[in-house]
Each structure stands twice: as C-alpha cells, then as structure tokens.
C-alpha cells in the first residue's frame, strides 16, 4: 500500500514527460530511420543518414557550430579567470567594495539572448553606434574603414554575444567560491608569505577549477542548440546547425523531413556527449573535493 502511494507522486511526471518529450524524441528517431512518412510507404532505411552525413553542407555547419562554441567557451573561461583575479585583488587590497562591480558583471545573465544579440548588432554593425562614435571622433574617415563585425563570415558578432552571456554565468558560479577560499586559507597564505598572485595561482585557482570546467561544458551544451543569436547575427553561409535545421523546417517541404530529423538526431547525440562530459567532470573532481576542503 505504502509503495503504491509513493508511485502516485511519480506517475504524473512520468506520463507528462513521456507524452510531451520522450514521444517527440521517439518520433524524430523513427522518422530519421524512414518510418512515419506521410508521402510514401514507410520502411526501414538509412538513406537519410547517408545523405546527411555525406553532404558537405552538413559537415560545414557542424564544424562551424563547434568552432564558434569552442572559441566562445574557451575565451569565456580565460576571461572569467581574469575577472575573478581582479575581484579577488580588489577585495584583498581594499580598493573598493566589489559588490557593485559584481552586480554589473552579472547583469547580462537576466537578459535574453534575443536582446543581447540585438544590442551587439546595434553596437557593432557598420552603421551602428560604435561606428558613429569613431566617425565623430575622427578615428576613421568613412564607413568602409570600419571592420565587418556582424553578419560576418567568421561569426565574430556571434562569438562576442556568446562570450558576453557566458562570462557572467561562469563568474556567478565561481565568485562565491573565491570569497570562501580567501576567508578559509588566508592565514596559510600569510604563513607562507605568498604574494597575492601566488596565492591566487596556487590556492584559489585549483579550487575553482572544478566548478569552472563544469560550467565550461554547460555553456558548450547550451550554445550548441542556441538559435536566436546566430539567426540575428549570422550569415547565409556557413550556417549554424540549429539555424539550418530551422530554415529547412520553415520551408515546410515534406521531402526534407527525413533529413531534418537526422540532423536533429545528430544535435541530440552531440548534446548528450557534452552532458556525459559534465557528469564525468563532476565525478572526477568530486574525488578531489573531499580531500581539498
């Protein structure tokens, strides 16, 4: 009786998630394998997979997506460490209280990607704000001298938006740890006569590395399926995976359904891979954590 009572708590969730999430994934998988076709008879086939995996467009998209994500996450990682060091330093030396600075850095977390990308677009586009300011100051003489930073081939605008959003997230995750470490190990640092830089490098950094690397993979997972930013700031070729899937989907051609679903499966598989990395990183670092603290 008690057992049944317990199951009642779980059943609504299990039903809901199977209906509105797992069924969707199942449908995607079956369509990618050739079932559920509307136009012709459905039978098992790997043609869609072959078609997608051999197509140059898909590979270009995949490489482009991965490149953008990796660069953004990597830069965000390095910049987070620098910001943490600055906050740490200002607290140590008592330059000024870091709270307002912290608030400023965390501000972009609550801004949707849509608005963030738009802000970057307004700022950096060829007739945008930065361009105007530079013209007024006389640094550049004509619009043509201003580099193309949005809707560009290398995706610089996209990378900037990603970093702008990822950096505050990473900082928010790790900043409490920095303060805690500082409080706890301060005496030890004094005992060994460590300079601020050495203290940060030898004590603070190793202790924030676990959280930082986990948030690095969280960012990678999230950005992999991010849509709004590349949609606003991207170019028609090469395109990010999610944008090209959406584009094929929005055209509404039933022939391409199978290919779309294959691309969806690829996105899911890669996301799962990043998810696995997160749990591995958590496991790997949790072994050390109990020892360090």
């Amino acid at each position, binding site marked *: 009786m008690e057992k049944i009572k*317990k199951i009642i*708590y*779980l059943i*609504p*969730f*299990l039903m*809901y*998630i199977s209906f*509105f*999430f*797992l*069924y*969707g*994934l199942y*449908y*995607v998988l079956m369509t990618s394998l050739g079932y559920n076709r509307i136009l012709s008879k459905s039978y098992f086939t790997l043609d869609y997979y072959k078609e997608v995996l051999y197509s140059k467009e898909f590979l270009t998209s995949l490489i482009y997506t991965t490149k953008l994500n990796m660069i953004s996450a990597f830069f965000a990682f390095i910049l987070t460490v620098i*910001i943490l060091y*600055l906050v740490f330093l*200002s607290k140590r030396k008592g*330059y*000024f209280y870091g709270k307002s*600075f912290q608030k*400023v*850095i965390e*501000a*972009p977390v*609550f*801004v*949707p*990607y*849509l*608005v*963030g*990308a*738009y*802000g970057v677009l*307004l*700022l950096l586009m060829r007739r*945008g*704000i930065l361009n105007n300011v530079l013209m007024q100051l006389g640094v550049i003489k004509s619009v043509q001298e201003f580099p193309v930073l*949005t809707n560009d081939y290398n995706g610089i605008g996209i990378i900037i938006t990603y970093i*702008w959003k990822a950096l*505050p997230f990473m900082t928010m995750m790790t900043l409490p740890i920095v303060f805690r470490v500082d409080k706890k190990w301060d005496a030890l640092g004094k005992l060994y006569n460590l300079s601020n830089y050495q203290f940060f490098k030898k004590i603070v950094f190793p202790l924030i590395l676990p959280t930082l690397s986990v948030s690095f993979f969280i960012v990678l*997972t999230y950005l992999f399926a991010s*849509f*709004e930013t590349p*949609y*606003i700031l991207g170019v028609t070729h090469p395109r990010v995976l*999610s944008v090209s*899937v*959406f584009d094929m*989907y929005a055209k509404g051609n039933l022939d391409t359904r199978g290919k*779309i*679903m294959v691309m*969806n499966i690829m*996105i*899911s598989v890669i*996301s*799962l891979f*990043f998810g696995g990395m997160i749990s591995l990183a958590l496991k790997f670092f949790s072994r050390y954590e109990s020892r360090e603290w």
Partner: protein
Amino acid sequence: MKKIFVGIVYFLISLVFLLPFIGVGLKSINFKMWEYVLLNEKTYLSLLSTFMVASIAMLINFLIGTPLASFMAREDFKGKKMIELLIILPLIIPTMVSTMGLQFAFIKLGLIETTLGVGIVHSVTTMPYYVQSMKAGYMTLSKDYINLGKILGANPIQRFFKITLPIISPSFLVGMSLVIIVSLSQYLVTFIIGGGQVMTLPILMMPYLSDGDMRNGTVYSIIYVLFTYFLVFLVGRLVKFIYRKSDRCR
C-alpha cells in the same frame, strides 16, 4: 595614483558589459517610436499571450513538478538515478528537437497554434529548472513539521500551503522566476507549435531585430526586459502574500 589606475580598469570592464544595454537605451530615446509601439494593439495582445503562456507553464510546473520534487528529495528508491536523468534530460537534449517530433501529434490533438499547446512545450523546457530548485528547498525541510501538521489534522493541500510553502518559499520563488525567465526567452519552440499564430513577445519582435531595425526593435527590447522583471516581481509578491496569509492563520 595606483588606485585611480585600478578604478579606470574596473570602469572599462564594466563599460564592456553595459555597452549593449547603453546602445539599446540610447537608440530608444525617441518619443514617436514609443507612441507607435504603445498605441499599437498588437503590443498588448502579445503581452497578454506571453503572460498566458508563461502562466500555463507555471501552473503545469507547479502541479507536476512539486510532488515530484518533494518525492525526490525525501525518498530513496531503486531507479532514482534514472528518474534524475529523466528530469535533466530536457536541459541536455534541446527541446527544439523533441518539439519538432511533437508537431504531428499536436496537429492530431488539435493543440497546434493554440496558447495551451505553446504553454505545454514551454513547461517541458522549464521543468528541469523548477524541479531542481524545488528539490533544493525540500532538502532543507524537516519532516517533523509535516508530521505535526498531520497530527493537527491538516489535509495535504492545507499542509502544503500553510506549512511547506512558507518554509521553502525562497526556493519556490527561484523556481518560478526561472520558469518565467526561460519561458519568456523561448523563440524557436513557440514558433514551431504556435506557427506565428500565438504572438508572444519574442515572435512579434524577431522581424524587427533580425533586420537590425534601429527604431521599433529598441523599444520592444526595453519592454521585453521590463516585462520579464515585472512578472518575476509579481510572482515574488504573490508568494509573500500567501506567506503572510498563512502567518495570520497561525
């Protein structure tokens, strides 16, 4: 001297973070644009449908996520790891994928291009956030309080609103705020299920933004951010209201 130098460094870093805001803010200072947007009927309709979608997502999360979170925090059972994986799966696998798969089923169910349909897919996207934060709240809740409620003869619903919710209200607040923030920032799944018929704010704004429109886009962006904050504020007020009411009862 050094202090000034450090101050300048901090100022520059802060500036980099705030620049996109400043750009949007500066460009929106134009009375005519505000007039156009505020007198437009579409703006209010989209605010209403955004609110409706977020409310449906919150309600579903509340009804399904709350018992789940309480159960996961208190009980230990076989297969718990599996359920935990299932909870965070919509975070890892993008809901864009599952939603594309759901589209056909939604057509058959008549949920396509309806506010309810969009609310359902938003609830799937936001559930991991809600359940995780509620779970953290339930972890801190001692079972004794609930047992005391049982002894005093309160039914489960009374126990939840008069004992549990006031104690874990911070986690509840975080969970609901996350649901609002995430639900309001969804574009793709809204478009797939809503088909452009369910005009939430992001759907209404997207054409302006992707064109780099310097006029209406900025005004809508500001409304968008303010509306998000407003909803979060509203939920906070509501939780405090429930809390105070139960305070009086005690």
